[in-house]
């Protein structure tokens, strides 16, 4: 008992200050991609061709990146002859709509808070049921991490619960395998309305690395209506937490926030 107390004392306080203060991310962290089309060689499609999920399209002097498909790998950066594309350290990337994930040079329209009625219901207490459906368990791992003392999800009133009947919504990961379609639908139906759905990771948004495989449905939207899209493969825990807190009006208060200056 004494040893446990001593160990507890040495452990100290480990919860990060988030959302106050800048989070510590590794220098090689790959966040929001940034493109400078003025550096693109004429007619060059190297990034688009290298992209494993065809998340990039080019044309008319523009380069569009679909964050919903992006695996945040280095293929486009490595392939670019003009140094025109790179990852920034921006981890705040969740949106309320699928369309907002299509980056075409403008600022990212980050997730705004839920509508007033939903916010009144869920703003201070949100219970989620997690459904994992045709992914690789990396998203699940970094969702689970939110329950550790480091992120301490509970302090925001957000909790994962063991039954859809106890839940206000679903957090879905995976490309939605055909083998999980029915289970996802039934779980969604079992959540009492009003309810929300959060899609975490490239798989749940677009199918991710499995996009267009006949075994999957290319993401959660094929089965349930999605209220929050959190891109990444997998998203950093902070990207997920930031998205949830924006949805609950705890960050950003719904105003349109601009990406950091170049």
């Amino acid at each position: 008992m004494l040893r446990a107390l001593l160990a507890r004392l040495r452990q100290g306080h480990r919860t990060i200050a988030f959302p106050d203060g800048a989070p510590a991310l590794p220098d090689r962290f790959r966040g929001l991609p940034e493109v400078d089309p003025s550096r693109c060689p004429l007619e060059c499609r190297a990034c688009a061709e290298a992209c494993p999920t065809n998340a990039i399209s080019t044309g008319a002097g523009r380069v569009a990146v679909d964050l919903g498909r992006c695996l945040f790998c280095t293929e486009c950066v490595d392939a670019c002859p003009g140094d025109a594309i790179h990852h920034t350290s921006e981890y705040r990337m969740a949106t309320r709509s699928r369309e907002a994930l299509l980056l075409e040079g403008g600022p990212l329209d980050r997730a705004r808070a839920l509508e007033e009625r939903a916010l009144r219901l869920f703003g201070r207490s949100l219970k989620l049921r997690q459904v994992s459906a045709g992914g690789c368990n990396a998203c699940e791992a970094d969702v689970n991490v939110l329950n550790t003392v480091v992120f301490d999800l509970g302090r925001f009133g957000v909790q994962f619960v063991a039954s859809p009947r106890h839940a206000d919504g679903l957090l879905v990961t995976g490309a939605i395998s055909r083998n999980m379609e029915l289970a996802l639908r039934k779980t969604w139906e079992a959540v009492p309305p009003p309810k929300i759905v959060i899609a975490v990771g490239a798989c749940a948004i677009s199918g991710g690395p499995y996009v267009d495989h006949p075994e999957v449905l290319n993401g959660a939207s094929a089965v349930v209506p999605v209220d929050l899209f959190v891109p990444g493969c997998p998203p950093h825990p902070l990207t997920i937490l930031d998205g949830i807190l924006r949805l609950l009006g705890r960050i950003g208060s719904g105003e349109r926030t601009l990406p950091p200056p170049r």
Partner: protein
Amino acid sequence: MTGARDIRNGEALALEEVPVVGFEEFRRPLLEGGSRLAALFGRRLEGRTRLLAVSARAETGSLVVAATDVGERYPALTPELPEAHLFEREIFEQTGARPEGHPWLKPVRFPSGGAGTADFFRVEGEEVHEVAVGPVHAGVIEPGHFRFQCHGEEVHHLEISLGYQHRGVERALRGGPDKRTIHLVETLAGDTTIGHASAACAVLEALSGTRAPARAHALRAVALELERIANHAGDLGALANDVGYLPSASFCGRLRGDFLNLTALLCGSRFGRGLVRPGGVGFDVEAERARDALSRLEGALEDLARAVALLWETPSVLSRFEEAGRVSREAAEEMGLVGVAARACGLERDVRQEFPWGMYRFSQVPISVAGTGDVLARAQVRWLEIQRSAAFVRDHLRRLPAGPVRAAVGGLAPHRLAVSLVEGWRGEICHVAITDGAGRFASYKVVDPSFHNWTGLALAMRGQPISDFPLCNKSFNLSYCGFDL
């Protein structure tokens, strides 16, 4: 000339050198003992199914490859070779060749949908009841279905039915390599990104005749051991959580993240995405970065040692770990268990020692074993491995070989076969690739350690109270997606 060809781990050979023998000649060596089945799969060829077996023979450090052709049905190997039972179900599901006499021939992954809709083994009698759990589980966990046959609290039989994570990875790898290949292997099991990517790169390098530089091999091995440390640390915490001992649960949960962040320090991704690449690694580690990683490693290890020591010092924890979910050494051997689950039963199985590849050819990691085959033994093996992996990481980060980190990879040679084994944190990962006439993958077989080990969990639950299922399950911590592919 015998009916098989020996190769080393990470070696390729011409397809014509793999002898296609009669069924008896194929079957006999598999039953002889002294080897374990690393892979057994079927390929549809015109009007027949070609079975290909890779057995791992520890004594000689060689992989024995043999093939045979069968028609619509063939005599099952399983009655005499129980470790073949899932492989043969898979062959039936994928090719239609029926292993006659297989004791429990049913789908493995339900590739055409309807996962879980099959007959389950049932115990009947008064007061016997059935408990069905999943595919959606109570926590943030992958989907799977568990069917328990219980008498009161006691579990007589557990049947595990998977396939819910099936997303067609093996099928999609055929026709490659292409721009998606490495991303598909990195996500075979996301928590084993380094393990599976290492196995795939060894296959690609063998088939293309590429030699990855020494510095790349060292960095791959460092990353593989970091992956092991992070996952084992998380599992020890999860075990503490499942017996309600919250101090270690909370400390280890945090520390697992610290170890994942070490991998992120190397490559930007907590899971090692982008690090292991065909021909080498995608990121170099400068001296300053290595020093930073080392000092952070020491800090986290110190805290981990304290968190884990609490487990061994707390009688209420030990009394829950001891005797829970016991698997005998004989059963482990018979069912072909690998990794932590096998070593906890006293089986000295570890690819790093038996079939060393890459850096492990020059630098050895002792095999960590325990004898009791219970939850405690699986926890002890994890802690031993953490310490030995840490020593390895320390050693190699201090003296990384000089030179480049990546070599160019050319096209793959046509009509060849390559096998690669890697000791991932769960156990033996096996990749087998066969190229066609154009140097594309005609077949790509993946065997995740979980494919061998789920049956171990089912056996561990026999005679246990059903309330111990979470604890036993966590002590194996197997992959659903790695199994389902």
